[in-house]
């Protein structure tokens, strides 16, 4: 007696996560442009160094030269080539940004979802920890740590930025898990005795995929800014090639006022800003791709 009308839309082809991500990146122009920008900058920072002659001697006769055929972006205070410094200087800030974001989001997802799902003692402890961490001013902690350890590594900086930015995210993920946990489909999963781990990771978190992803992107941006800020304050050792350090040097020596020395500060700054714009554009369309309802549009 019952004849259910055949569904009107044709079934979506079964998709793996990778194909969903690819579809997300190519679904609209701005998302695609964002992805291209991000990939180009990553390429410049991580593949670039292998394609060039990394030898970049200082030369007292070439201080702050304007761009020329020999030095496409001019030279710096020590007469070193700006372009080579730009290519070599990207790896560290990007690595710090990505690692710090991974740590922040990873900690937040695990702590936030466990605390929000189980509540009780776990929750109380997690909340206290985040409260304590929230009260420590990150920049002061940095100050202390950098004066104690003169040569602090990029990875250590990433860990510190990651851990200190996690608490805010812990709280928002916990709040979301708490509300999703009350949703009926989660109750349905409990009725199937799926177990807490599965319920958190396969029922609840995928519903927050877009949110987590956007926060990951924002965390990268924040970490990069924090790193550049610390260089600007002179908190970090000036050893390696680094975009943050370039900005600091230009700023500190007043060279940013010289038109011919402008590329030394403008190019790293522009790359950082472009990277962030690229990430944001990319994240918008990926967020849509991660939501099956928005995916069809």
């Amino acid at each position, binding site marked *: *007696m*019952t004849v*259910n009308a*055949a*569904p009107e*839309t044709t*079934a*979506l*082809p*079964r998709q793996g996560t990778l194909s969903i991500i690819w579809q997300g990146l190519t679904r609209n122009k701005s998302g695609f442009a964002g992805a291209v920008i991000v990939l180009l900058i990553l390429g410049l920072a991580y593949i670039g160094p292998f394609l060039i002659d990394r030898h970049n001697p200082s030369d007292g006769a070439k201080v702050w030269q304007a761009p020329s055929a020999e030095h496409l972006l001019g030279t710096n205070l020590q007469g070193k080539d700006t372009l080579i410094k730009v290519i070599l200087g990207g790896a560290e800030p990007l690595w710090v940004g990505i690692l710090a974001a991974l740590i922040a989001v990873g900690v937040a997802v695990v702590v936030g979802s466990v605390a929000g799902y189980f509540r009780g003692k776990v929750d109380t402890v997690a909340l206290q920890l985040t409260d304590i961490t929230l009260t420590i001013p990150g920049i002061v902690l940095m100050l202390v740590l950098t004066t104690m350890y003169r040569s602090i590594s990029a990875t250590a900086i990433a860990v510190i930025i990651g851990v200190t930015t996690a608490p805010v995210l812990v709280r928002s993920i916990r709040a979301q898990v708490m509300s999703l946990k009350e*949703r*009926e*489909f989660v*109750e*349905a*999963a*409990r*009725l*199937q*005795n*799926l*177990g807490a781990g*599965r319920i958190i990771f*396969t*029922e609840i978190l*995928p*519903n927050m*995929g877009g949110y987590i992803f956007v926060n990951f992107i924002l965390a990268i941006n924040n970490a990069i800014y924090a790193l550049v800020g610390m260089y600007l304050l002179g908190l970090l050792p000036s050893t390696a090639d680094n975009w943050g350090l370039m900005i600091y040097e230009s700023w500190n020596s007043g060279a940013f006022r010289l038109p011919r020395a402008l590329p030394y500060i403008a190019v790293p700054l522009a790359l950082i800003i472009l990277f962030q714009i690229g990430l944001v554009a990319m994240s918008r369309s990926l967020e849509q791709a*991660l*939501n*099956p*309802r928005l995916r069809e549009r």
Partner: protein
Amino acid sequence: MPETPTIPDSPATAPLLRLSGLEQVFDTKRGKVPAVSGVDLKVEAGKVLCLVGESGCGKTTTARAAAGLTRPTGGSVEYLGHDIHRMGAAEWQEYREAVQYIHQDPYASLNPVRTVLSSLTAGLRKHKKVKGRHEARQAAARLLEQVELTPAESYLDKYPHQLSGGQRQRVAVARALAMNPKLLIADESTSMLDVSIRVSLLNTLGGLRDDLGVGFMFITHDLAVAKYFAWDGEIAVMYLGKVVEHGPTPQVINDPQHPYTKALIAAVCEPDPRLARSKKTIPLRSAEIPSLTALPSGCTFHPRCPLAESGDCDTTPPTLAPLDERRRLACHVVARDHVAAQAGTG
């Protein structure tokens, strides 16, 4: 028959599910809310028990406790004679599979980011009841056929938002069936659907009851739906957290005894103009339902009850006691008159 929770049944004779003295008090900002206070009910294998009542009567709270979704603050829920909150992991797993719950809102009960296939087979895969993708797909297709979603293949890869309300509710039922349950607790599962869709889902559920021998605890505010689905079963009418009348459906519907049941049945808008015009509503003394936080003394229905008398009604809460062989009733006045009438005829 009065329930005697003190004598434990042996698993062989114990009912599928028994609620004894079930109490659920919620702590809220406005104080303690006794949503359910002292419910004794049982469901036998393959039988239908329908809980009816208005919003706030405790029918959903009772159902959720029966499904093990909440822990009651008093009394017990027993599955085959065993208290579900004192079970070991293996026993709990058996109960969990045997008693499934279907939510009211088919738009909220399916995970929006999972396909029908994935929702249907999550439990099967977790409990190792299917091996591999192919087997899972076949199992899911069989489940969809059981709930008359055919051709099943065309639904498996859909996301919930691509389905209509009726189709989603069928998927939710299929997911419950995946566990091979002995009892389905359906909480207003048809009330959000349009009439024609509702009937077809009711008929499907009736098929599961008749063909698979699945028992039902069926919660609804719609007396017509209760009558249709539970005709061969029983109805328990709830008011402010208590069962006020309980008996076989045809008796309760066509010969209600409790003044509240009478008022409810008289209040139904009948889809039949002549019947609607001839039917007399029963005027209640007050239109407003008392708040659970400030329950009236004695019988909680007495401030609205047309039969209320001073004396017992406003001082002593009536107990749910047998009226005849098959019916239980919680009303001082009707019980007394019944005894008097029997003494008169006998």
